[in-house]
């Protein structure tokens, strides 16, 4: 079953190369999402099922949605219509769809071959993880919450409408 790891690793590296060589931001985001999904599969194979779930939910879900949101917001109107027409062409979604299909096949194989058990020989369950996280590492949880609060306040302060309007006024 080691070959599953190497296939997922190859998918991750190829998709990451496609991210940094792509000219279109939306296509690069699609490839990055596939790369993150393959990393989630690798986490699962490395005996970290909770981290794999968080990788899909937080990274491929929340953070990438933020990116897609901002990229769509910055696109001019004409470009958006053109890219919508391009999205219907098969060549646009074929590139990320093939590695995603490979990952889906691997996931189905892992789930059916393992029959309810984890494929790795060393598995850290979420129970043990949370016992440690809120035991010796509770100070790090507090620090992370302060960091998230600072991120929230900073993002609101930088992107609030008054700041954008005054900066536009400076331009004129």
């Amino acid at each position: 079953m080691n070959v599953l790891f190497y296939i997922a690793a190859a998918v991750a590296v190829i998709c990451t190369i496609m991210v940094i060589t792509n000219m279109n931001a939306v296509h690069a985001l699609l490839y990055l999402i596939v790369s993150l999904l393959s990393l989630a599969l690798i986490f699962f194979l490395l005996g970290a099922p909770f981290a794999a779930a968080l990788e899909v939910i937080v990274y491929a879900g929340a953070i990438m949605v933020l990116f897609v949101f901002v990229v769509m917001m910055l696109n001019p109107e004409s470009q958006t219509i053109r890219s919508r027409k391009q999205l219907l062409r098969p060549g646009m979604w074929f590139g990320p769809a093939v590695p995603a299909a490979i990952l889906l096949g691997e996931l189905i194989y892992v789930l059916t071959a393992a029959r309810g058990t984890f494929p790795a020989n060393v598995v850290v369950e979420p129970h043990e993880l949370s016992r440690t996280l809120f035991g010796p590492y509770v100070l790090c949880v507090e620090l992370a919450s302060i960091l998230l609060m600072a991120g929230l306040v900073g993002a609101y302060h930088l992107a609030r409408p008054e700041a954008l309007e005054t900066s536009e006024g400076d331009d004129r």
Partner: protein
Amino acid sequence: MISIPTAHALLLAGVLFLLGLVGVIVRRNIIFILLCLEIMLNASGLAFIAAGFHWGRPDGQIMFLLILAMAAAEVSVGLALMLQLYHRSHTLDADQADRMRG
């Protein structure tokens, strides 16, 4: 049962980190710079998970959780700065930001 060599997982993390670093250096579009920063943070998370797998301890996953929280905060502030840059100079080129005054 699966038994991945820890060295191979760490090698993958190194390759991904290097790709992200190359992307940060080569690309000048600020969206791609942020994406490549995400790739680098993810690769460091993979290195922590691989180390946690090697010793069978939950500490690696805890460091991954903290990296996740840090990445979320970094992305929100980075995207807000990107919006500011776009509204000020109407471009996403990071080199255009060298004319900032004050």
